[in-house]
């Protein structure tokens, strides 16, 4: 996983609440066995008409937002399915940070596994960042994960909260599985104990 340290870039305003995962990437584009290449399907129905032509009024189809690396959204972003294709599509498009007043749990969690930073900030702060984002290419935001601040174009710094363990993994680009396997002995001990306590539990075995 790519580490996330600081990011300075164009932020795209997406002032829609309850953006669901079917909006982020419709189910018909999940028929892939790869993680990459999903950026072309990001926000498909918002971005393209029924004939596959770009909708000129959608923010990511306009300059400088085609190159956005940050997304400013509203409440309950990423609700719906568990598809990790949603953060994969954002990442493949080039978006590495989403700022919103709230996220759905599974989407929020999936972001961290892919080096995408979801930042929760109060609605009024998001509204101010949304205004910044509307100023376009001359108004880049900086996200500094180590210091836990978003720096606005006017230099004002907005602090954000993040789970320390997730921050550590993200800053260092660490693989979760590698981390957990450092505790393989504990897992083995737990399995032995549980096998004794719940000896009534049969294994799953087919055929």
């Amino acid at each position, binding site marked *: 996983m790519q580490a996330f340290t600081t990011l300075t870039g164009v932020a795209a305003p997406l002032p829609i609440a*309850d953006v669901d995962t*079917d909006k982020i990437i419709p189910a018909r584009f999940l028929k892939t066995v790869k993680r990459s290449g999903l950026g072309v399907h990001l926000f498909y129905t918002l971005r393209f008409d029924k004939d596959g032509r770009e909708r000129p009024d959608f923010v990511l189809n306009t300059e400088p937002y085609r190159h956005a690396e940050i997304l400013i959204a509203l409440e309950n972003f990423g609700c719906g399915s568990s598809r990790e294709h949603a953060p994969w599509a954002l990442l493949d498009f080039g978006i590495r940070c989403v700022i919103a007043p709230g996220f759905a749990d*599974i989407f929020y969690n*999936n972001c961290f596994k*892919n080096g995408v930073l979801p930042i929760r900030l109060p609605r009024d702060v998001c509204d101010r960042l949304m205004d910044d984002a509307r100023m376009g290419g001359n108004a880049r935001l900086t996200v500094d994960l180590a210091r836990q601040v978003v720096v606005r174009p006017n230099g004002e710094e907005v602090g954000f909260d993040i*789970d320390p363990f997730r921050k550590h993994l993200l800053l260092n680009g660490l693989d979760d*599985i590698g981390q957990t396997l450092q505790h*393989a002995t*504990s897992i083995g001990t737990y399995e032995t104990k549980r096998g004794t306590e719940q000896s009534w539990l049969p294994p*799953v075995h087919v055929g």
Partner: protein
Amino acid sequence: MPEARPRTLFDKIWDSHVVERLPDGTCILYIDRHLVHEVTSPQAFEGLRLAGRRVRRPDCTIAVVDHNVPTENRRNGIAEEESRIQIETLERNVAEFGVPYFPLLSAQQGIVHIIGPEQGISLPGMTIVCGDSHTSTHGAVAALAFGIGTSEVEHVLATQTLLQKPAKNMRVAVDGALPVGVTAKDVVLAIIGRIGIAGGTGHVIEYTGETIRGLDMAGRMTVCNMSIEAGARAGLVAPDQKTFDYIKGRPFAPAGDAFDRAVAYWRTLPSDEGASYDKQEKLDARKIAPMVTWGTNPEAVAPITGIVPDPREAADEARQAQMQRMLDYMGLTPGQKLAEIPVDVVFIGSCTNSRLEDIRAAAAIARGRRVAEGVRALVVPGSGIVKEQAEAEGLDRILLEAGFEWREAGCSMCLGMNPDRLKPGQRCASTSNRNFEGRQGPGGRTHLLSPAMAAAAAVTGHLTDVRELA
């Protein structure tokens, strides 16, 4: 000895699965059962392969194909190339990694959340995960069950654990006798209408109260299934005699003396008297009517006796704009009577409502009636076994004679990943769980409702108060 703090059902399951608590409070949580399907697993198996890792506990894992599979003519193979590749990829992966698998043409095949409980793979007190948000379904058997992304699928395959922090506890109590014609689906739609699609975010919802206890296991599964539509990580119902009777004799459940020992443990799981919840909500079942959604998320719901609401009555400008967008997409106008909205398609199926009880409810309405002119109605059983049982009861004949299509098991029209999908502009009365834009196919319009309500819409050709057909 100091008295132990009263704990909830969630607390008990959580505590008993903590392998290790890291200094910042993150837990390594042990996972008892991992359900795997074709859409969210290929990248996870590929990750294992690249890292030279194996599946730690194939004996705690079960794989099945459901999202992509066609629901007719499947012996002829799978026509859509990308779907076929995903299914073949899963078949290669389960063979390579030694994961138990129910093949497409076996009776055990079905929607992953139908087959878990049906096979006795999902049991009380367990932690269960799957790369699918509707994993919350298994909470009906008192398992802590939640959806995960593909990276976490890989994490569970490799370690049989997840890195997690505990969710908060929420209790939704439903009391009172359900009126005639009102079902578990109406209860959960009413709950989501009340608490909203983010009302459960960060929480595990425990459903309590005499109405929930009165539901059969299928109904409890319907309720828990839609927990995620309220934003909750999981839903739970305390185990009781109904739970134990349901599990007894199922293929993968403990048997004989082992079953008795299991029940003794399961009886310790219900929330303690005085356990505290971070959030609580109460509903009076006597006031719930058959429900139907009018918008493009599950909280946009109203009793069938109601009307399409007016965006001008929304709380703020943002909500007004959101509601207007919903009505534009749905092709509805404020003030329109819900019970007069015509439908093109009726879909009875999905992990929410494709169990035998659901098909019986649909057949009871269909018996002696005909699907309305111009309406296409599909009934898609949740598993090969549900299909066999329904056919043994003659339900397929009732439905076929009434003009419904009778299909083979799969996710079907719930999510437009297989040949069953809506055409742009088509309006569907659907027993599934999500009415998001494009969910059932690009441009498709979804009204969520119960199986009996769906069957009623099929025979009248418009959304209908099922109580008028009784």
